[in-house]
């Protein structure tokens, strides 16, 4: 049965020279697809996690008493929101990396401690984090000032108010926009291929450059994979949204 399926794809490849599903009948190409998918998943999880952390801390800093802190966050948002993520990736990897500490395994190579995958995570998290800060700010401003004043009257410090009262309420308001941004982030991880991060798009390009007949099937794989990945993320976020719902607040 399995052999019959493999033979079907081999026949399809010989009848239609642009529809070679090579990863289905060639083990080394299958391994490339799987490893690319795995790197994409790891990259997405790391970036989603880090960017949400940046968002939470960033929006806390936006309400800070210190003008320096507020200016710092404003500057960070302007820089990372106004520049294309592609350019940010190139800048971090080529322009900044030589200034970071590196070691030499053989006396000539300079291997930076932060690899290209590391730079991709840093760059993409900071990019999405800038958007998240603004998304959380929308939620923070939705919390009524009377509630915050009441908390202040009860003796909470500013940080305690943020942590125990404002953030839980703000999160519920920001979730739809946050969901949007995280979906965008998962798709933006494809841009890491430009600094040779071996994620799914990079592996697909390798496969279809070695085997031009496999280009159309690889594009189908890309579409299906990202649909599935984003679908899982959205399902998770919707579950979370439903779990956090407070009756009478929002939906």
């Amino acid at each position, binding site marked *: 049965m399995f052999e019959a399926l493999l033979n079907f794809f081999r026949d399809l490849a010989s009848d239609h020279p642009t529809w070679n599903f090579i990863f289905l009948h060639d083990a080394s190409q299958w391994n490339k697809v799987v490893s690319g998918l795995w790197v994409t998943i790891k990259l997405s999880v790391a970036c989603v996690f880090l960017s949400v952390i940046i968002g939470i801390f960033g929006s806390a800093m936006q309400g800070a008493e210190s003008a320096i802190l507020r200016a710092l966050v404003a500057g960070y948002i302007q820089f990372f929101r106004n520049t294309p993520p592609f350019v940010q990736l190139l800048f971090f990897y080529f322009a900044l990396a030589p200034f970071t500490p590196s070691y030499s395994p053989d006396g000539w190579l300079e291997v930076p401690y932060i690899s290209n995958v590391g730079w991709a995570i840093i760059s993409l998290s900071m990019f999405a984090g800038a958007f998240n800060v603004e998304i959380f700010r929308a939620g923070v401003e939705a919390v009524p000032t009377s509630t915050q004043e009441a908390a202040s009257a009860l003796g909470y410090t500013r940080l305690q108010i943020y942590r125990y009262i404002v953030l839980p309420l703000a999160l519920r308001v920001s979730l739809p926009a946050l969901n949007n941004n995280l979906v965008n982030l998962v798709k933006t991880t494809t841009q890491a291929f430009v600094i040779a991060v071996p994620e799914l798009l990079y592996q697909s390009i390798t496969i279809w450059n070695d085997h*031009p007949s496999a280009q159309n099937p690889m594009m189908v794989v890309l579409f299906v994979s990202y649909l599935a990945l984003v679908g899982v993320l959205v399902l998770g976020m919707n579950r979370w949204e439903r779990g956090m719902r407070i009756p009478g607040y929002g939906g």
Partner: protein
Amino acid sequence: MKKFIAGLAASAIALGAVAATAAEQCTNDVWNKVMQRGKIVVGVKADYKPWGYRSSDGSLVGMEIDMAREVADTLGVEIDIVAVQSSNRMQFLEQGKIDLMIATMSDRKDRRAIVGIVGPNYYTSGTNLLAPDALNFTEWEQIRGKPVCGKQGAFYNQIVEKRYGAVVIAFTGNAEAKQALRDKKCIGFVYDDSSIMADLASGNWEGFGMPMPTEDDNPWALAVPKAEQNCVFGRFMSGMQYNWLKDGTLIELEAKWGIQPTSFLATQKERFKDWLEE
């Protein structure tokens, strides 16, 4: 009996029709379109000095651009030069965005199934490594397990990985890959020996060289749309290539663009030598 004969006649006609369509009829669509429009669109490289690159004023120049212009002059049409990349040159030709492709493409079997590659091949080159002199490489085995920069799309990336166990880090463009080499992120840049020679000749690569023996000599091919391969356009381009090789036009272009003279062109000129020529 009548029915039987009628049936026999019907099947004979049907078979005849099938046989007629089985013999390929050239429709010469692209050729006719080019001649009617009075313009040919040629895809060339924009980042492969000196075959196709941008001069300081932004226009596309190079050996292959000169070849394309000669094709347009011979046809008596205007020329429209379009920059293509390794990753999209065949697709552009397939989709009709370009009519002819002369873009430093290596002649490979699976590429022949997609675009109309016609001979005789006008050039050839092999794989080599742009490496720093300080590393004292003498043979390919020395790169085993080491990071090697490459360009996404080159067919020899996987050959180098499989054969010598190098770890190929492939970037989207030559510029990024070479920059990574300068930043010491890899021990060499695996690429076409003709391009590496051009880089070394440019003088920007002090301290670098091409120490390895060239491997996997692979002829280059230009391409017409697949449907035109055995029709007028394909035959015409074969004729152009034959004449370029025979009368030494390519050798002159080599000299004009500062490319190291290759024995391939000299051999081909000898091979196609006119028997009456003195």
